[in-house]
């Protein structure tokens, strides 16, 4: 009975939503519409915000990836919040699983094929992860996927070593240091430039690795932070074996 009701409700939701999306959709030609106003000065601009991003990213930030420029520079404060959400979740998870840490589930060892293959593949995966977050301002990706790939490497490690977890203390220190350096980079912006998270490094040559001011630094910090946080989550979910 309850199921039928839920089904009816969700089908109704589906119809309403698809009708709303398919008919009342937004104007797509964003480059034309949407002039905006600066709320402080009241100055009018006759182009839209995304157009501004697309056209000025190169001069403002020096990054070739506009999405990265938005994530790290223009709306960098959001990203600080995003990192904090992940940090909060990892902290809460560790808090909740504190007494669940020790476990005595029976474990089967992996066979040698997997063990030796992981030995070969692991450096490669870590390398790809590092590549993704270092090149965040040039290619798609950035701190979050890069950190996730590194965490996938950690995951392979704890999948193969059944009795050992990850070095929890080191992960925790890395995580803290990365987070602190992110906020400090922002606060230095307040000191050297005028505003929090403002760029104070030279922009460098466009499309080069060492360019785009603080963007690579922040993405490296995020990469380390996300990697160690997700690794810590895996570690906590796995639990430590009692010998």
């Amino acid at each position, binding site marked *: 009975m309850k199921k039928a009701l839920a089904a009816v409700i969700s089908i109704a939701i589906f119809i309403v939503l698809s009708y709303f999306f398919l008919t009342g959709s937004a104007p797509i030609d964003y480059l034309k519409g949407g002039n905006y106003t600066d709320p402080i000065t009241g100055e009018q601009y006759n182009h839209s915000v995304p157009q501004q991003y697309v056209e000025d990213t190169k001069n403002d930030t020096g990054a070739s990836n506009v999405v990265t420029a938005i994530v790290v520079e223009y709306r960098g404060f959001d990203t600080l919040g995003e990192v904090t959400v992940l940090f909060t979740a990892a902290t809460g998870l560790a808090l909740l699983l504190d007494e669940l840490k020790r476990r005595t589930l029976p474990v089967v060892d992996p066979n040698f094929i*997997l063990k030796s293959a992981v030995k070969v593949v692991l450096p490669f*995966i870590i390398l790809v992860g590092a590549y993704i977050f270092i090149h965040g301002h040039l290619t798609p990706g950035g701190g979050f996927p890069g950190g996730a790939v590194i965490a996938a490497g950690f995951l392979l490690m704890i999948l193969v070593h059944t009795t050992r977890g990850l070095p929890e203390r080191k992960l925790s220190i890395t995580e803290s240091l990365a987070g602190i350096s992110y906020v400090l980079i922002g606060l230095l912006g307040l000191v050297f430039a005028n505003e929090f998270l403002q760029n104070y490094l030279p922009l460098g040559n466009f499309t080069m690795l060492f360019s785009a001011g603080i963007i690579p630094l922040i993405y490296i910090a995020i990469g380390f932070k996300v990697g160690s946080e997700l690794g810590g989550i895996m570690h906590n979910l796995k639990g430590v074996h009692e010998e």
Partner: protein
Amino acid sequence: MVEGGVFMMDILFFTLISLLAIATFLALYRLIRGPSAADRMVALDAITNVTAGLLILIAFLSGRFIYVDVTLVFAILSFVGLIVVARYLEGGL
């Protein structure tokens, strides 16, 4: 790609992608029907391979080199997912 009329290449790629789609649907059938979780995992492996092919074709069709990174991450993560489920099934998690 030429604007307007249908180009030879378009038909070719259309066929190619149709083939890929059929392959995914076949595997999708196994993903949904497969009696055991191992069957589903096999199907997932097959589908991720096919969709990785689809990804690189999309990258080619969009003409952007940088999209290839996605395929690499895709391959890594699907491998890790496969190993996780396999280790779970053999009781090693």
